[in-house]
């Protein structure tokens, strides 16, 4: 039985209305397992063949052309996984890089990169060309990031150890930036039962302050005409809409871009400035919980 604080219930009943109970049931479930085929090393038909041979049940992820939902018997201990032929990654976590839509030869920054699922996805999209800067301020988490970069055969990546909030001081500009921000993590309730119990508006506000600094730093690191994707795996307005509204107020050239993801049922952002952003809920999709915003930097 999922246990949530009174604050959590009250707050979420307010933003979800009649959908709250359905949402609350879904958010505590363990997420369906998925893998992303690492196209830097292999092809989707090869991995499909391996799964067939091993009688693994699998089906396509609608929003990623090289990903499968799989049965639970696929583990990180398998031969093909250790060779870096695929990455075990929650299907919803593939959406932010899909929305960022990087092209080979672009200059890309992943501001909060560890442990590297989205970083290695971006590297596949870049086809190991251009440059991918993967930033992570925590040394222990850098080790996990480097392990995944190496395992996936990523050769165009530079790993940096900076505070993401001040990364713009490096004075380097990018075509695309991903900010998958640290957050209160309501979407992780399926594996961390305490998240909802410990939820409080104070905690949410602390994250919101950090997220505003991160998104500002990311925006300042964008070249003119560049785009950034801001994502979290949580629900609060303070960590999502308020962060984007803050960015729009602070920077004249910031514009929210409309996004649509195939196969995803999404709700709109909850403030007038964020109607083009996506709220992806687990009771409407076979995924976790995500907020996704795409921002363009105009001249």
């Amino acid at each position: 039985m999922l246990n949530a604080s009174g604050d959590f219930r009250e707050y979420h009943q307010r933003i979800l209305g009649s959908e709250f109970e359905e949402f609350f049931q879904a958010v505590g479930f363990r997420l369906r397992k998925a893998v992303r085929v690492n196209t830097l090393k292999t092809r989707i038909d090869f991995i499909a063949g391996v799964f067939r041979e091993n009688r693994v049940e699998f089906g396509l992820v609608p929003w990623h052309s090289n990903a499968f939902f799989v049965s639970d018997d696929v583990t990180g201990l398998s031969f093909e996984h250790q060779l870096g032929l695929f990455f075990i990654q929650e299907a919803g976590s593939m959406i932010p890089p899909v929305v960022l839509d990087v092209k080979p030869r672009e200059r890309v920054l992943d501001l909060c990169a560890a442990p590297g699922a989205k970083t290695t996805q971006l590297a596949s999209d870049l086809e190991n060309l251009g440059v991918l800067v993967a930033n992570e301020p925590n040394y222990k988490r850098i080790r996990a990031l480097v392990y995944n970069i190496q395992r996936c055969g990523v050769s165009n990546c530079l790993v940096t150890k900076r505070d993401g909030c001040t990364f713009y001081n490096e004075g380097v500009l990018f075509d695309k930036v991903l900010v998958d921000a640290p957050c209160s993590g309501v979407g992780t309730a399926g594996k961390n039962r305490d998240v909802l119990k410990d939820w409080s508006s104070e905690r949410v506000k602390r994250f919101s302050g950090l997220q505003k600094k991160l998104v500002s730093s990311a925006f300042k690191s964008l070249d003119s005409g560049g785009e950034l994707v801001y994502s979290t795996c949580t629900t609060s307005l303070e960590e999502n809409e308020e962060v984007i509204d803050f960015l729009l107020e602070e920077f004249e050239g910031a514009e929210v871009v409309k996004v649509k993801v195939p196969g995803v049922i999404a709700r709109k952002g909850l403030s007038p400035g964020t109607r083009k952003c996506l709220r992806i809920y687990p009771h409407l999709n076979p995924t976790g919980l995500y907020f996704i915003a795409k921002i363009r930097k105009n001249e």
Partner: protein
Amino acid sequence: MSELEKIVKKHFEAEVPKGKILARKTKDGVKYFLYTGCENPGLDIEWTGLHIGTIIGGVFQPTIEGAQLLGPSAGKNVVSVSREEAEKLMSGEEIDVETSDDGVVLLEVEGLFFGAGKSEKGKIKQFITKSRILKK
């Protein structure tokens, strides 16, 4: 031709993959990295590119990724094994082989390169870091 290119050509008859090759001296030998990205715009870096192998005592020991990149162009010192043998090697175990000269060999199973190892007196043991060992 760089030292790495010479060794790779002579020992495996293979081509070093295209891109910038960076060498870093460590206590374990000289580590080689492949970098295919744009010029570093001046960032202070913790890690660059892909570790493709290490020269220890004049002998090049490819990593799993190094073997995957060199393998398709290699003309010699490639050993093909069964799936069962490949899993044993990836688990850190030795296997017996009949037809391999002593020295470093690239390892291949059903067209898939999965690393390199040392062949000696009819046995092969894979070079594999702890984090990549296949646990049963």
